[in-house]
């Protein structure tokens, strides 16, 4: 399952979508909105995605992961729109027969997602806002 959604992400649903009886191990990464960034209070975040390309790029990441590890299941959900501190921005769940692979595959997927998938976030502080990572 690859999902980009404006609705709050239901973690349980994502985990279930990644689970399989042959699995043995399921690793899940949940990224939430922090209430602070470099010492400044975060009021809210806004996420936007180039949706068809984001889905295609996530699929490429999954394909690469499936070449390296025995994925028995996987599911990724990324939220867009306005998020408040504490809310869930992304959930990656991966199931594999053995434990180590589940950690390695899940970490690879979230690391790659942050590098190549066309999704952007703008941080809103009390005194302004900025597109994250845009400038040096």
């Amino acid at each position: 399952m690859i999902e980009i959604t404006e609705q709050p992400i239901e973690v349980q649903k994502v985990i279930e979508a990644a689970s399989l009886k042959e699995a043995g191990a399921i690793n899940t990464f949940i990224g939430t909105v922090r209430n602070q960034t470099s010492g400044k209070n975060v009021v809210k975040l806004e996420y936007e995605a180039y949706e068809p390309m984001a889905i295609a790029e996530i699929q490429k990441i999954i394909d690469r992961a499936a070449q390296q590890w025995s994925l028995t299941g996987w599911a990724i959900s990324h939220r867009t729109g306005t998020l408040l501190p504490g809310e869930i921005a992304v959930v990656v769940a991966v199931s594999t027969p053995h434990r180590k692979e589940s950690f390695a595959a899940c970490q690879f997927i979230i690391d790659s997602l942050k590098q190549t998938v066309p999704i952007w976030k703008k941080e809103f502080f009390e005194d302004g806002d900025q597109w994250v990572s845009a400038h040096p």
Partner: protein
Amino acid sequence: MKLKIKTFGISRDILGGREVELDMNGTSVGDLRKTLSTRYPTLDKLNSLFIAVNHEYAPDEKVLSDKDEIALIPPVSGG
């Protein structure tokens, strides 16, 4: 060649619209980069700027057609 360009993140703020029409010199992604850089010099200050053609990251050599879906991809920050 006249192109419609989708913008995202900070590139939308710089170009001033979700979809911007652009009259460019040349036919390749590299040519489009040059036109953009001349017209919107602020783009050069970004950490990176990729151009996507039909939902794929495109190399500078790629030749464009006016039927392609073209999008600007400033530094991503998902997750």
